[in-house]
């Protein structure tokens, strides 16, 4: 890893800063233009989350040296990430559904502005109230 030069690190840092600025400007632009619905999603998803993935890759590949590390390290990390996705999609099916075979979630979305609806801490209790 001695071949990594300071110049390359500087270039990666500048690229990260540019990507960071774009990731903030995208959603701000959506607010300024008053974008809603699909067009807003189309702007925010790639600028905020797409760029986050690119930035994470750049840090992992170049700063953590995963690109030049022995293959076992990327395998360890990718296996962990893969298991995370199994967990995510495994529970997502049940959590996102409002009802299923012999059960339902009698849940109402709380209304109110940020920080002013103290009653919504009962959410979990209501959601867990499955009827068999």
């Amino acid at each position: 890893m001695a071949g990594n030069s300071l110049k390359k690190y500087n270039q990666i840092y500048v690229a990260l800063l540019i990507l960071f600025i774009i990731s903030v400007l995208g959603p701000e632009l959506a607010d300024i233009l008053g974008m809603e619905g699909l067009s807003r999603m189309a702007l925010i998803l790639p600028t905020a989350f797409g760029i986050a993935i690119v930035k994470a890759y750049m840090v992992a590949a170049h700063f953590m040296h995963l690109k030049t590390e022995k293959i076992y390290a990327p395998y360890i990390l990718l296996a962990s990430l893969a298991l995370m996705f199994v967990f995510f999609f495994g529970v997502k099916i049940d959590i996102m559904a409002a009802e299923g075979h012999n059960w339902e979630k009698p849940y109402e979305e709380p209304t109110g502005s940020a920080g002013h609806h103290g009653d919504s801490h009962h959410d979990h209790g209501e959601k867990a109230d499955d009827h068999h």
Partner: protein
Amino acid sequence: MAHQIIATSRSATGIPTGRLAVWWVVASEIFIFGGLIAAYLLNRFLHGSWAQEAAATSTLIGGINTFWLLTSSWFVVIAHHYSEQKNAKKTRQFLWLTILLGGFFMGFKFVEYYKEITHGMTLFTNNFWSFYYTATGLHGFHVLCGMVIMAIIAEGDIKNERNWHRVENIGIYWHFVDIVWIFLFPLLYIAK
């Protein structure tokens, strides 16, 4: 003279023992933060009110903190570069600059917490804020741990010109903490 036997690398992987251990730490952290982020995403999809709550977080402070962490990642990789050249002065200098930026991050985080708590948004306000304080608090704890370990390496090892490999090891950890923030930032501060 008898030698103390220390396993410096694992023959199966060819990766030095310390660095391999850090990769395992990072793998375990993927489950800790990955689980939190997965739970957040599911709740965010499920409850429209979470987007309204996220609107109350400060994009400015979140953005400034992102800048501190990105820059600190750059500094720690430069410290690693100088550690490979066995340049103790420069290595320590960049390790302490990284610690300083970690301190800036924590300082801004405390200011942000103070503002939010004084505006009535506490750990117990609702599920969004419970998640917010859990995720950012756990992340902040990792930043704090990284700063302490880095200070020990700078003053205990590099000052005495030994254990140079530890700079890379703490660097890997620090970069991972940076990556976690790279994902927390859009989730909590940008997507509103």
